[in-house]
């Protein structure tokens, strides 16, 4: 095995796949190595009985419509990836318990969203419109910055609002905007999609994400995430790239401080550079010669907060969504209107918030006629899972699942339990086993005031710790989410292609 590649990609998660698509499309000789038997990492599906379940996607941001394509659709089109998209009309329904609680169903589209908010909270419309205007400003600033120049004068004169948003929390900004409290709470519903608390998360990041969901026509692939991942697998093959599944990279080989290849069971494989879709700290601590890793890299990994833990329940029901009275695609069930209370609910698996999705309401063919699937998600903090051991595992798993299902039945006033034909429960340990991330988190590093998307982007050049070794994924600059991972993979490939070009090798 002396073959030499331009690049070896460790892991075929969303970011690894997008990286490999862009790299192969531009002629780099690429090998992708994946531990699992399938591509996608989080982005997959599985079959139990007569049901196929979406494993992770609630909604994919910024797909847009055929007429008005968003960045994700454009990226897939540029690859000629064969995906059928199905757009989704309603943004979300949120039910918050407790004092000043509410039940709000919010439509997608800026005007419709603002109208609905006005209906729920009179006098809120203007501040909501102002918020979406800020989202546009944030996109413009990012576009300016991504050209590689950041003239402080231009920033101050044209992007001052962006500088404010990118350095102040969601809470600080919404208060400054004069948005009524209830409207603020409803606007903050999407925080679980970034998994960071709104007093720490900067508005720029939150707003870009939120606007991409509400204004950017979110969508789902017709055949679950497995379709996305196989479509990208297909692109890589068509472009002449190679993929080894069921193959674990045991070591990233370095020589004189540079990455030169990887070791798998069959031997060593060499390449000009290695792109890792696994966590940096996993690579540094388990897959590399410790002498090759600078101290600062380890300090950074330790300073960061790892993303929250996931716990999901997949149900195959033997009645249709209509028969059961399920109308909403996506419902957020919170213990309080206050997003910080919601965030803290993750500290207990008996209280954590729950998100419930019924794919059949968007894609009626998601399961056989007369049936439907439900996908329930909760998130937990590290401490909430710390007391679980082999012996109480199953009992705790069933207890959490039961609570999640019963909460949904109670809040939506419908009955689900008697119709469960199949049930699959995925715990943080299930995710840990499948993704190989710390605590199984699919969310990379949690955004902190010092570790924001912008701080990551601006420091990227100082944080390329090992020459020829790049990291892509949810732990990258754009943090978690399908669209972030695709975009991070794609832009990292762009960067390497520029470097190859500059060095005159291509």
């Amino acid at each position, binding site marked *: 095995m002396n073959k030499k590649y331009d690049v070896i990609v460790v892991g075929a998660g969303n970011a690894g796949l997008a990286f490999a698509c862009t790299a192969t499309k531009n002629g780099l000789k690429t090998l992708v190595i994946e531990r699992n038997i399938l591509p996608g990492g989080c982005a997959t599906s599985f079959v139990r009985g007569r049901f196929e379940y979406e494993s992770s996607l609630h909604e994919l941001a910024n797909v847009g419509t055929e007429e008005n394509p968003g960045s994700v659709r454009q990226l897939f089109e540029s690859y000629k990836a064969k995906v059928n998209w199905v757009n989704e009309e309603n943004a979300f329904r949120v039910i918050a318990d407790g004092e000043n609680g509410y039940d709000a169903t919010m439509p997608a589209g800026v005007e419709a969203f603002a109208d609905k908010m006005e209906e729920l909270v009179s006098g809120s419309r203007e501040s909501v419109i102002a918020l979406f205007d800020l989202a546009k400003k944030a996109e413009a600033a990012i576009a300016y910055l991504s050209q590689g120049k950041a003239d402080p004068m231009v*920033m101050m004169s044209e992007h001052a609002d962006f*500088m404010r948003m990118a350095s*102040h929390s969601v809470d600080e900004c919404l208060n400054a905007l004069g948005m009524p409290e209830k409207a603020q709470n409803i606007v903050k519903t999407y925080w679980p999609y970034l998994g960071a608390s709104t007093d720490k998360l900067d508005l720029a990041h939150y707003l870009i994400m939120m606007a991409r969901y509400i204004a950017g026509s979110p969508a789902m692939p017709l055949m679950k995430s*497995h379709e996305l991942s196989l479509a990208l697998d297909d692109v890589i093959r068509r472009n002449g790239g190679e993929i080894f599944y069921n193959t674990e990279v045991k070591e990233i080989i370095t020589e004189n401080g540079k990455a030169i290849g990887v070791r798998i069971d069959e031997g060593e494989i060499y390449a000009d550079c290695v792109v890792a879709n696994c966590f940096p700290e996993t690579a540094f601590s388990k897959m590399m010669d410790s002498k090759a890793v600078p101290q600062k890299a380890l300090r950074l990994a330790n*300073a960061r907060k790892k993303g929250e833990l996931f716990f999901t329940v997949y149900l195959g029901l033997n009645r249709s969504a209509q028969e059961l009275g399920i109308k909403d695609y996506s419902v957020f069930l919170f213990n309080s209107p206050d997003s910080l209370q919601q965030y803290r609910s993750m500290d207990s698996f008996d209280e954590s918030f729950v998100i419930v999705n019924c794919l059949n309401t968007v894609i009626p063919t998601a399961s056989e006629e007369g049936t439907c699937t439900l996908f329930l998600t909760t998130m937990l903090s590290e401490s909430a899972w710390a007391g679980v051991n082999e012996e109480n595992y199953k009992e705790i798993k069933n207890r959490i699942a039961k609570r999640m299902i019963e909460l949904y039945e109670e809040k939506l006033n419908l009955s689900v339990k008697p119709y469960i034909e199949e049930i699959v429960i995925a715990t943080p340990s299930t995710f840990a086993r499948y993704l190989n991330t710390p605590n199984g988190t699919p969310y990379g590093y949690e955004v902190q005031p*010092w570790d924001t998307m912008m701080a990551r982007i601006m420091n990227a050049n100082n944080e390329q710790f090992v020459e020829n070794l790049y990291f892509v994924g949810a732990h990258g600059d754009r943090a978690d989410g399908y669209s972030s991972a695709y975009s991070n993979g794609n832009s990292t490939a762009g960067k390497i292609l520029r470097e190859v070009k500059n060095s005159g090798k291509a």
Partner: protein
Amino acid sequence: MAKHNLESLNPLKFTELIKNRETEIAKANPEIPKEDLNANFLAQSLHPMKQTLKITEIIEAKDAKIYTLKGEKCAYFTSGQYLSVSVRIEGKTLSRPYSILSSPKDALKGFYKIAVKRVEGGIVSNFILDNLKTGDTLEVSEPTGSFTYEPLRDAELVVAVAGGSGITPFVSMAKAIVEGSEDFSLLILYGSRKEEDILLKNELDSISKNCEKVRVIYVLSEEEKEGFEQGFINAELIKKYTENRAFSVFLCGPQAMIGFADKELATLDLERKYIRHEVHGEVADPLTFENFPENTPETVKITVYSKGEKKEFFAASKNTVLRILEAEGITPPSRCRGGECGFCHSKLLKGEVFIPKELDKRREADEKFGFIHPCCSYPLMDLEIEVSQ
């Protein structure tokens, strides 16, 4: 009227982002903690990639042996799950699923038990029976499979319909009920030809004697004896012993027995959620499927790509693609060997295969992009296939 803007916030805070970041990094520990986080630790202990175990005891039974497999630590599991056991035969690594018959808590004590029954023409089972001795080591997978009791889904009473080696998962369930790691009522209807063919009878008898929640009824098809039901397990028998209680049926055994029992169950008008299957034994011969196309060539050319290597050979066509590959020493990962688990997922680059509808458990997009499960695909012509050995 309020002005809806961010003017009150200081934009220059933005310029501190880099400095703040450097400060936080400088404060942090330069050593990555060695111990795993709890979710990773549990992932490792519940789902080890492989377990190396030693055979410490072999008990002979008619046409079968019970093996005790010991390890320093055995991964915990849920009764009803199986191990994919690997053996090396003539230089090839082959694996087969065997249900665990010991209890979950036994695993924590460091052992599993499995029963291996002699199968006509069986490669791995017969190899194990004829060659393995106490003291030998075996490599097995993590415990896996979804033939398990789910309190949120199943009725409190489970009717186990068992035949042959299909009794094993139910023995584990019965023990789990006794030791308290499961909580449901189990009525086992166990079909055998003659009394002497009943596997694990002593164990079953002593459990049902001491535990109210477990009841065992033996059904003999070729012998009439007092204390035994006679004939095949049918709808009448199920009705007789369930006495109007709601129940879930779990079936485990050879294909033929399951086929018969399924027809009987159809007359009971149960909702599909109350019937669950685990087939013991794969179907090598496609001619057992009614709609297998005629005129398929006897010999086909198979071209296989695996990690950049290419191999071509001719093979007799009447077999699963997985078995054809294994006979050539090409061993894609496999576990259930019945189409369910998706472990053998492979890309069919050229050619067509026959996939029996009842075994086709692929994901929707697999068909769109030409992926198959070789364990339940039969070649209809020359094939080119990529596998992940």
